[in-house]
């Protein structure tokens, strides 16, 4: 087993596992910047994956559109519930987590054998161990990376970015109201946008190799993204790097299994979660929202 093939397997795994996490994390930066904590993302991602698999039967583009629209709608519903008086965003998030996961499993149950198209991708040809291998680089990943740069710039340099940041600050509601704007509406928009990006994540899960719907698809993506963004303090470029790092760890476990036949894939798949808990456990205590 050569080092080359291990690196190849790692890269292939990274290109498959990374994009959903990166897409969901980039969108969640908007949500958390606006002061919303959407734990329900964990339920939204599997739902959008099912939507993408269903819509994808009429073409990959329709699948992506269905997933993005569905994600935005579900996350918007979450924001709507949160904006009602006396509601608790964590409790609403848990309801969406459980409800969304159940809905995805229920509707997706019959979709196992459904043929699905693949997203258009750029084929990277890599020479390794005397053979050329084709790795797919999905357009969705490039779109998410572009969006991350755009959001990074927009949050700093535009009026809309300023408003969004204001919505997430303590006392932001009053400041926004004084300038004739509504914190609730801003948070609704930001949470929906986060859901739309979660839709991209779902679309990638269902329409990129190997694709299709299987039980448990998308588990851990939503909560992973929310945790990454929390650790990155909602900075999109940092979130992208963290998400790529998380995915690299999982891909490494997979590559080891493929290349060397070692076990331990299960542990590698949750190692990012353990690291996140360690980071949160050793970081200096932050005042306010935990």
């Amino acid at each position, binding site marked *: 087993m050569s080092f080359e093939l291990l690196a190849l397997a790692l890269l292939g795994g990274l290109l498959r596992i990374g994009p959903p996490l990166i897409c969901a994390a980039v969108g969640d930066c908007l949500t958390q910047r606006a002061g919303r904590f959407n*734990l329900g993302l*964990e339920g939204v991602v599997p739902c959008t994956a099912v939507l993408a698999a269903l819509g994808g039967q009429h073409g990959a583009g329709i699948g992506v559109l269905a997933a993005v629209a569905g994600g935005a709608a579900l996350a918007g519903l979450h924001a709507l*519930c949160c904006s*009602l*008086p*006396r*509601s608790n965003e*964590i*409790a*609403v*998030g*848990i*309801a*969406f*987590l*459980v*409800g*969304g*996961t*159940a*809905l995805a*499993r*229920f*509707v997706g*149950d*019959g979709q196992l054998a459904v043929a699905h198209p693949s997203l258009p991708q750029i084929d990277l040809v890599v020479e390794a161990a005397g053979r050329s291998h084709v790795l797919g680089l999905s357009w969705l990943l490039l779109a998410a990376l572009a969006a991350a740069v755009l959001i990074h710039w927009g949050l700093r340099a535009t009026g809309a970015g300023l408003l969004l940041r204001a919505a997430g600050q303590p006392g932001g509601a009053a400041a926004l109201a004084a300038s004739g704007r509504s914190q609730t509406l801003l948070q609704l928009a930001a949470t929906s946008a986060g859901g739309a990006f979660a839709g991209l994540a779902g679309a990638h899960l269902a329409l990129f190799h190997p694709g299709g719907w299987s039980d448990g698809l998308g*588990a*851990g993506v939503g*909560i992973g993204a*929310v*945790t990454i963004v*929390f650790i990155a303090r909602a900075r999109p470029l940092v979130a992208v790097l963290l998400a790529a790092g998380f995915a690299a760890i999982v891909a490494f476990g997979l590559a080891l299994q493929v290349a060397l036949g070692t*076990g*331990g894939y*299960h*542990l590698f*798949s*949750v190692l990012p*979660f*353990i690291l*996140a*808990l360690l980071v*949160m*456990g*050793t*970081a200096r*205590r*932050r005042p306010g*929202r*935990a």
Partner: protein
Amino acid sequence: MPGQRRARRLETAAIAAAASLLALLGWLLVAAVTGLPAFASLGVLLRGSFGSGFALRQTFEAATPLLLTGLAVALPARAGLLVIGAEGAFVISALAAAVAAAWLDGWAALPLLLGAGVLAGAAWLGICGWLKSARGVHEAVSSLLLAYVAVALVSHLVEGVLRDPASFDRPTTAPISVDAQLGSWEGLHAGLPLGLLACLLAYAAVSHSRWGFGLRLAGANPAAARFAGIDVGRLTIAMCVLSGALAGLAGALQVGAVAHSAGPALALGYGYAGILVAMIARGDMRAVIAAAVLVGALEAGGGALQRELGAPAASAKMMEGLLFIAIVVCGCARGPLARWLLAREARR
């Protein structure tokens, strides 16, 4: 004020009715869209959960772990903690119990099974308590992350070093010794009396003891609780440990009474369904019993839907999810509705 109390009761009843109706409508819609006979499915659901001796046994078999996982969520919730990772404690302690009880025969096997489960679960969720009290990490996030870690850890161990060579397609640990197996009475889950007892004890402790008063105070107003001399940090850790112990007892009982071995297949969602049980019970530990039976009925009824109508395996989870969202949405009317009812009475 009796008027106020009556308004509160009316409000609770109205919200419960509205949530049930909303969930029912949601189910009819989902069933119709996915091509199931919507109204016929309700009959199957009812017969499959309460319609026969077999159905009742199924309902109570599912309700037994839910009594404990429901308590594991409802108890810390009274102290203001949203510990939602009972699933993780459940599978970890099932594994610990199965491993501990596999090699020992005799009278000590059963206490060892239960003790290992309770300890493993308590230690597992104790991590969340420490992270919360020492580091301010939200317990909902940490317990959920740990639930994934637990399932992966169990999968890793049971597919690896702890695998029973005799288990083929569904890897499990070696079966526990016969002395650790709990019998059943008339086909009922042997853990049922323990679960019921735990609920009643929890009710007595929360509603009628000094400790319970401190707990409720810390949940309602942590600043006031600190001022009153309650160590909220220690209470936080204690509640997470207790939550883990209860979920751990559920996991150990599941191994002792039903599965007789442990594996990733035990992660059937009893921990997550426990959140729904706690949500329905709304902080009343006696109500956990009724809520667990209700959710157990959905589990049993979902099985019947699958058998008789060919519905998806996730039917029970689907109904639970709908009920969950309906309760959260309708619960937002709490407060204003009672005020409106009170004002209407005053006008009369």
